[in-house]
């Protein structure tokens, strides 16, 4: 009898907990609180936070190789399957129309990727801080947070630095949720009141056929110049083709509803499984959080500055505020551009104009991911 009791006692959490695990359970709870009470990207942060709690339960081994989270991780994250399927769903949900109607604005989505590559440099420079050691692969995985795109960050992170994946995903989604707080001061600092008041002309009509051709065009350019980006860009294009072609609506609907929901649950839980105490509670995580903030800020600034250049070049036809939307974080960043524009001029609706750079930013960061995977991976 005593032996049985002892066995049971030895199998309690009380007997087995480490301080780190308790802290991580609090971190998981904190993410869930941010998601529910503050609206921080709940679709991802609730599963990630809950996965983080499950991963830090002693004895149970839920994130171990034979546990639920470990099995899901090996099947879907290590292989890249989950982020690629999410990207397909994103493609099936994205209307590239606003971008096609004024393609020149795509350049804003390119400029904002400066945040990624500047952060790569910053992460390497951080090695000068004692206690932090980032390899080139680590640095690249962290830098991609600046892409402000969840599945891209998880895909690159899982390929280049799986040990940092938990922190990278948490940083990426948290900062995406914080876009309405991070971006406005930078946007206002870099623009004049006159620039912000700029009204933009109405968008031209985009035909169905242009929309069908676009994903094939994008895939074509990518496969010729940067095949390493084709898994991500390819699935985005595939999803978008399902949506736009108009003859496979049942597949398109499944890709953007049930399938992406199922994969989101699995992806969130298994990414949360990477929030293990010994990996997460380290100086590296603080570095990742700091660098992620730098990446978002620099990306926003680069987009706005490119917006100012276009404002000059076009003789005032482009409102620089839509430049910040180039970081992606669809559609939050475009909404922020719209909001700041309305503050300057209550008749100034920038939302649809900002959607162009916004979705271009998704493509831009997928391309940047391809460069990182090709050179560093």
């Amino acid at each position, binding site marked *: 009898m005593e032996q049985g009791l002892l066995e049971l006692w030895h199998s309690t959490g009380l007997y087995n907990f480490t301080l780190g695990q308790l802290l991580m359970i609090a971190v998981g709870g904190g993410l869930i609180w941010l998601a529910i009470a503050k609206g921080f990207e709940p679709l991802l942060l609730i599963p990630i936070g809950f996965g983080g709690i499950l991963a830090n339960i002693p004895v149970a081994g839920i994130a171990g190789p034979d546990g639920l989270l470990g099995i899901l991780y090996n099947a879907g994250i290590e292989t890249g399957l989950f982020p690629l399927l999410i990207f397909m769903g994103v493609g099936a949900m994205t209307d590239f129309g606003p971008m096609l109607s004024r393609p020149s604005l795509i350049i804003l989505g390119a400029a904002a990727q400066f945040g990624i590559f500047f952060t790569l440099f910053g992460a390497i420079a951080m090695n000068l801080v004692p206690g932090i050691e980032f390899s*080139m692969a680590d640095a690249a995985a962290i830098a991609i947070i600046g892409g402000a795109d969840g599945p891209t960050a998880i895909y690159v992170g899982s390929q280049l630095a799986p040990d940092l994946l938990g922190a990278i995903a948490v940083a990426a989604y948290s900062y995406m949720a914080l876009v309405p707080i991070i971006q406005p001061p930078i946007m206002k600092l870099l623009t004049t009141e006159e620039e912000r008041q700029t009204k933009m002309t109405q968008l031209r009509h985009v035909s*169905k056929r242009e929309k069908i051709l676009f994903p094939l065009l994008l895939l074509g350019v990518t496969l010729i110049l940067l095949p390493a980006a084709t898994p991500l860009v390819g699935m985005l294009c595939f999803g978008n083709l399902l949506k736009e072609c108009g003859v496979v609506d049942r597949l398109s609907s499944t890709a953007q509803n049930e399938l992406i929901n199922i994969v989101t649950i699995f992806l969130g839980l298994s990414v949360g499984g990477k929030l293990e105490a010994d990996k997460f509670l380290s100086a590296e995580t603080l570095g990742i959080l700091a660098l992620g903030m730098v990446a978002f800020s620099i990306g926003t600034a680069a987009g706005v500055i490119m917006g100012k250049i276009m404002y000059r070049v076009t003789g005032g036809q482009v409102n620089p505020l839509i430049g910040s939307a180039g970081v992606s974080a669809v559609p939050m960043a475009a909404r922020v551009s719209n909001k700041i524009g309305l503050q300057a001029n209550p008749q100034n609706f920038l939302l649809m104009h900002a959607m162009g750079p916004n979705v271009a930013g998704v493509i831009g960061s997928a391309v940047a991911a391809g460069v990182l995977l090709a050179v560093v991976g």
Partner: protein
Amino acid sequence: MDINALLIESLQLLGLGMGAVFIILVLLIGLISIVARIVPAEVTAPTGVVASGVDPQHLAAISAAIHQHRKKGN
């Protein structure tokens, strides 16, 4: 690899990366503009009918047949 070499490599990557992003997206701008000029304006989208591979009379006949069949039982 010492820190200086890494720093230089990461600066190179900055140049390469932004270069690649700009080349690809600028090319995309060009192609989109060309497509926009080439593709004819919309002509009330006849794709729908072609896609189903059935002409309207045919469809009418089918519905009629099904209707008749249903009315008579089964």
